[in-house]
Structures are given as C-alpha cells and as structure tokens.
C-alpha cells in the first residue's frame, strides 16, 4: 500500500505524460503480483468496493471532529478522501500498514458491517499519504491525471507491445491480470482476444471549422450527420453480446432492449439514441436511461433505445478495419439490406458538391438530435484513437445568449481556491411587476486560465452575500453563454434548461440591464 501510495502521490504532482508513464512502468516492473495487478485495476477504474461509499467516509470524519468542522474542512479541501486523510492522525500503536493486495482481498471478503472497523484500523496505521491513497482507491476516483488509456500504455510499454494489442484483449481479462503480466514479462502466450465480443478501440475525429475545410479536397471526403446521442460499439461473438461506451465501458446492463435485439455477430460503430416512431428524441430523454442499474418496463416503453450505425469493424469472422471507409460502408449497407431490424438503422450519407453546398445543408438542418456533421476520408482505414487527418467533426454553431452573473461557487480539485462555477440568469418580470433575474444555467468552463483569474477576482470584489462555498454577486457582469441546445424544463425556476452551456465571452462592454430576457430564450426552444 505504501509503494502504491507513493506512486499515486508522485503521479498527482507530475504533469508530464512521459514522466507519468515512467513512474507507472517502474512501479509495475518492481512490484510483485498480485499487487501490481490490483494497482493496474485501480488506475484503469476497474475496482469497486460496494461497502466503502462516500457516506461512510463522511460519517468517519464527522465522528472524528464533529459535523461543523468536517463540513468546513471538506469545503476547503474540495475532496472527500483527501479531507479525511488529512484530519485523521496516525496512531503509532496501530501496527504495520496493509499491502495493496491485502486491502483489496480483505475488502472483497469483508461484510458490510465488518468494513468500517477494518478501515479505521488501516487509517490508524497508514501515514497521511497512505490514507489518501487508500481512500482514493476505495471511492474509485483516483484523479491523479492518469487515464485508463495511459495506464494501459504503461503496461504495454513494459512488454514492448503496442497499446492496442492490450486494448483488444482487455475485456477478456480481469484483475489482478496475471495472464497479462505473464504474457508481457514472461513470454507466456498472448491471452486470446476472441475478436468480436471484445471491445475494439474506436476511431475518433478532430474538430474542424469552415476556413480549415478549404484546405481539403471535398472529393476525398464522405459526410454524415453527427447524431446527438452517445457513441457506442455493438459487439457480439459466440453468444456474448455487449454494448460499450466510447471509452470501453460495458453499458449493456442499462440497455437490455438493445442487447436483446442483437441477433447477429460482428462489431459495429454507432450512436445510441432514444427514438420514438421515426423521430430522434432530445438528448435529455437519453439521459433518463443512462447510469441506471435496473431499467423499469415503463422506462423501456417510454424511452426506447435505438442504435444508428455508422460503421462496421468486424463481420462474418473478418476484421474489416484495414479496409477503406467506402469499402466498409458498402459492406454495412449490404448487411443492413438483408434484414430489417427495428432497433438498428443506418446513418445516411449526406451528399454534397463542394464545401459551400455542405455548409448550406448544415445551416438548414435544425432538427433535434443532430450535433453537426462528420467528415470521413473515403480511403480511411479504421484506426484506433484520434489520428490527425482522416476524420473530422464539424459541429453546429452554438446558440448564444447574454446572461448576467448571479452566483459563483468554488470549484473542486485543482480549482478549489477559485470561484469557477458560475450561475447566470436572464431578465423577466417578477411577481411584483419589477424586472428580476431568473437563473437559467450554470457553466464551469469555456474560459482561459487568465480569464478564470479575472472572474475569480471579479467575484471576490463584487460579493454581496456568502453561503458556504457560494457567493452571491452584484448584478453587474454580462457573460455571453454558448450552448448546444435548449429545452423547456419543469425542474428549473426559469422554465428552461440549456445543454452544454459554457462561457463564450466576458462582456465587460455590455450593461447588465441590456442582457437577454427569459422570453428571448424561450423563442429558441425548438
């Protein structure tokens, strides 16, 4: 546990990617099984301890120093695990600290009622860094700037293999990954990838704008709509049917309607949508289906899921990723023509003469459920990751509104001393006939670091009221907010909710009373 704590500690302060890789590689090389395997599982987000949830940790903290002081401490630090690690004091009589393997194996066996006592003993025995690492591990949010991909890169590096060779077999493996280390370090055979049921790393696009398009030859590209859902991979092989998110997370459990409808073998790339009749429902509807452990029949009926297919990666036992986009597209169209499947359809190609023609179609398309256009080189093979050049996304221009800053809240993590979460509002007529501001959204990005420092200072200089980590400010700053969509909402006081709002510009030039009204926003609702 101490070695793992030192690794996490060093990673958390090391900004350079290569240095992070070196730290992980060194750790994986020096640490014996099964500890290194558990560490890899932790870094890739593959460990879950049902008995150690935030409420338990909060309870520990409150027990130690009382609710008020614990709340103040947490507000200040902005991270629950770190707060508890800092307020707890090491007990010199608590005996030796546990190993990582001991922690994982003990918690997997321990009952819910045994866990608190075990945890307390470990917290007493570890030092502050050890406690922090233990608690980060238990809450499943390491936040040390290491993606699952980076951890897999490190493990691939120690065996001198490309990272995709690890990605392809990843979903066949489970922690503590002994066969993986045996293959990478001890010349054992590569664990079988059983292509088809496994997750294949998806190909991603780079953003592009109108001016950059002029440097490209339109004849080399195919266009299709970028649907506003969730990018997924449908993978089926040997009776194993799975739905993966773009990051390789298995989301089959939340979408039994899709999984049950898989009556084929192959791997497809597509967009997960909620679809009623032929219309794509707003993203909000899809959100109702996400992150659910169990799905009710009502939910299945009212929010039916659907996959709109973009691409085919594997079909009839054959890896198609080496083929060109045009060839894969032909295979996909031929396949879908054979049998009608209500849960699956094809994302149509958008034909165009030149970029101006495509721009016109992009402008004209105001339908819900479309985020913009995808541009794919006709000759592009399906490459994992985000290669520069073959694929582009050309998003719809965001909508804009001038809103007035109303509240600011300190951020968490790296931003814990900055007022970085901004609630803004638009004007409407209040009950007493006077104009008042109604909050219409909250944004915590879109600004540069320099603008953040400026905003933080503005908030501190214009505070009129404080509620814990939240400050109310005088109504004097106009923010131009960009957002990708807007819908009516019964949950929000103003009656509207914005999708993906961010701060586009700070309008110091505009007086607050000239900001937009709620009525203006309502006109934007489709």
């Amino acid at each position, binding site marked *: 546990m101490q070695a793992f704590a030192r690794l996490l500690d060093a990673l*958390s*302060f*090391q*900004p350079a990617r290569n240095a992070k890789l070196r730290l992980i590689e060194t750790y994986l090389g020096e640490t014996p099984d099964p500890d290194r395997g558990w560490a890899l599982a932790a870094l890739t987000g593959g460990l879950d301890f049902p008995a150690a949830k935030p409420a338990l940790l909060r309870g520990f903290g409150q027990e130690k*120093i*009382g609710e*008020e*002081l*614990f709340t*103040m*401490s947490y507000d*200040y*630090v*902005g*991270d629950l695990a*770190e*707060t508890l690690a*800092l*307020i707890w*004091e090491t007990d010199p009589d608590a005996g030796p600290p546990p190993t990582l393997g001991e922690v994982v194996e003990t918690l997997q066996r321990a009952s819910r009622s045994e866990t608190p006592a075990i945890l307390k003993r470990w917290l007493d025995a570890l030092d*502050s860094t050890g406690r*922090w690492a233990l608690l980060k591990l238990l809450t499943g949010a390491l936040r040390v700037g290491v993606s699952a991909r980076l951890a897999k890169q490190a493990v691939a590096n120690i065996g001198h293999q490309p990272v995709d060779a690890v990605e392809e077999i990843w979903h066949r493996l489970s922690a503590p990954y002994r066969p993986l280390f045996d293959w990478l370090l001890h010349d054992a055979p590569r664990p079988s990838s059983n292509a088809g049921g496994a997750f294949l790393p998806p190909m991603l696009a780079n953003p592009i704008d109108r001016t950059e398009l002029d440097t490209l030859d339109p004849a080399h590209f195919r266009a299709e709509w970028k649907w506003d859902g969730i990018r997924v991979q449908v993978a089926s092989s040997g009776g194993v049917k799975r739905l993966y998110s773009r990051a390789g997370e298995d989301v089959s459990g939340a979408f039994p309607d899709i999984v049950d409808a898989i009556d084929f073998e192959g791997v497809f790339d597509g967009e997960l949508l909620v679809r009623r009749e032929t219309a794509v429902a707003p993203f909000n509807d899809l959100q109702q289906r996400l992150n659910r452990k169990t799905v009710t029949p009502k939910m299945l009926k009212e929010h039916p899921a659907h996959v709109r297919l973009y691409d085919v990666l594997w079909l009839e036992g054959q890896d198609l990723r080496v083929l060109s986009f045009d060839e894969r597209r032909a295979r996909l169209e031929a396949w879908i023509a054979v049998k009608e499947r209500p849960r699956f359809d094809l994302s149509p190609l958008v034909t165009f003469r030149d970029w101006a023609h495509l721009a016109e179609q992009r402008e004209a398309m105001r339908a819900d459920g479309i985020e913009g256009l995808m541009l794919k080189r006709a000759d592009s093979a399906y490459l994992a990751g985000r290669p520069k050049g073959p694929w582009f996304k050309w998003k719809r221009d965001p909508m804009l509104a001038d809103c007035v800053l109303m509240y600011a809240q300190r951020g*968490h*993590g*790296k*931003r*814990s*001393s900055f007022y970085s979460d901004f609630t803004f509002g638009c004007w409407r007529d209040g009950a007493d006939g006077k104009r008042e501001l109604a909050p219409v959204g909250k944004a915590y990005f879109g600004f540069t670091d320099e603008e953040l420092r400026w905003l933080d200072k503005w908030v501190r200089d214009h505070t009129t009221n404080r509620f814990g980590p939240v400050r109310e400010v005088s109504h004097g700053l106009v923010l131009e907010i960009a957002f990708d969509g807007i819908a009516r909402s019964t949950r929000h006081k103003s009656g509207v909710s914005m999708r993906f709002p961010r701060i586009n510009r700070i309008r110091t030039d505009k007086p607050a009373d000239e900001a937009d009204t709620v009525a203006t926003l309502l006109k934007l609702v489709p």
Partner: protein
Amino acid sequence: MTTDTLAPTPLNPRSWLYPTPRGLYCEPGDFYVDPAFAVARAVITHGHGDHARPGHRAALATPETLAIMRTRFQDMPDTDQQPLKYGESVRMGEVEVGFAPAGHILGSAQAVLAYRGQRIVVSGDFKRRPDPTCPPFEPVPCDVFITEATFALPVFHHPSDAGEIGKLLRSVATFPERTHLVGVYALGKCQRVIRLLRQAGYDKRIWLHGSLLALCKLYQDHGIDLGDVAPVSEAILETFKGAIVLCPPSALADRWTRRFADPIAAVCSGWMGVRARARQRGAELPLIISDHADWAELTQTLKDVGAPKVWVTHGREEALVHYARSIGIDAEALHLAGREEEES
C-alpha cells in the same frame, strides 16, 4: 439604591482596542497595531509585508524587526524608530505595551497591551514548533487573546520539518542531474530552510536568487549561521546539476529558471499540505514547511494562554471560533483591513 449599581461596569475590551479601516486601533494609547496604511504611531509585531508597512511617523517594534524594516524600506529616515526588546515594556498614552516572542520569524513578537488592569495579547503571526532562527513562542496569560487563523482547519497538520527536508534531500539524491529550485518566502522561510538543511547535514553551497540576498545577510549579521551561500548571479562555469537553489515562489515560473538543468520545482509552504493548492502552484515537490501554527498548535495555544475571550483574525476564522466556543471560550471573528492570504 442598592450597592449593585455602584459596582464598576466591567471594562469592555472592544471599547479600547478595535478594528478600523486603517487597522487595529488602540484608543487610550492612540496607536495602531500592524496598520494597513501609514499612520502617526504604529506598533509592529513582525517584518512581513502585510504587518510592517513603510511611512509611519513613529514605529515601535523589536530591534530585529526594525532592522528588517530598514532593509526593506530604504532605512526609513522619516520614521521615528522605537526599539523595544522582548520582556521590556513602555507606556504609550494610558497603555502599557510590551513584547513577547512569537516564534514566527526573526524579531517576531506578540504585542502585550495592558490598560486599567485588563490585558490583551495581539499575537501577530506565530508558530509553536522549534525554529532555529528565532526564540520560541511564549504563552502570556491574558484577558483577550487575538490569534491568527491562517491554518485554522483540522486538515492542517504540518508534518515534522526534518521529514520534509528529508524529502528534498532524497529527491536531490534521486535526480542528481537536475537542479532543485526551492520556492521560499524571502523573509523567514528562506533562512529557516537553509538552517534546516544545515541541521540535516547538507554542507554544500546553497545558491540564492538575488532578491533573497539582503535578508540573508541581515540574518547572518544577527548571528544565524547559514553556511556557504552564494548568489546565482555570481556563478561561473556552474551547471547547477544536483544543486539546491532558493528563490521566491514567483520566480519558479519565471524565465530566470531557464539557466538551470531540467529544474524540479519544490515549494515550501503550509499550503502544500492540500494537493489542489500544491498543483495550482505548479509544485512538483511540495514541502510542507510553514511559519504559521497548524490546527494542533492553534488549539493547544488557546488552552495554554487560557484567555476567557479570543478574537480570531486573518484566515479560516469560522473554524477556530467554532472550536473555541466548543471548549467554553467566548470567541469571535475580528475582521482586519489589509490581511491577504500570504505566503506561509
């Protein structure tokens, strides 16, 4: 009439010492303690910029603090400088003013103010752990204790200085080809870190950023042995590989650092105990070394001083007020002008 009405009304301490926009004002003595602006008469607890400011007509402080102020403010020829040693006292108006060591930096003092049988201690900034560059904090029994609250949250438990210096020396041993740039506050932290390195047995030359020289010289003149120190600007044919270089934190991200060998940025501050703070400051090697009391020291000090009333200033007042009330002390926050969150 009963005799009750003849009993003297207890003196309200807020009636003779209270915050004003210029700073904490003592009315019967007609002076300010650590005022935020130039005033006629000032009592200065220590030399840090948010406590000691230039331009006062008269300033009462320890001889060391006055020396620090002269170094920082071009000798202060227009200020009537009134040195007062620890343990001595002087009358200002109707108030008796004395100084007791605060253990914060060289010359740092608690101002002990006595008026009509009531005693208020303005502790300024203080810490309780040993510091090789100044005498330790001395608890003074009093009616009102004014305490700082820079690190007044239970999350602040500063680890041992020796352990943190050990972290730095281990890193120097692990990366012998790189320069260790250590960000330190020019007054106090710098000299303390040098002394701690010497105590840990590090006897190589320690390099200094130009802005640290004057105060290091002042400490040396006060008999604090810093060993072999030299300004970076005087280095000839020096690669700085494996070297320790001290500089103000602001210089860590400066173009000045380009002369060094793949530098590692270490930052010495109490804030380094909180990860988000350390990352914000760009620290690759955070070292938790502070000249301010941590939570345990603050709470212990309230018990040691035993004042029935405590006023809490600059920092996280809320938490310390809450704690003090929970142990039966009449505590409240005291909002003073000009106190920013400083390098600590």
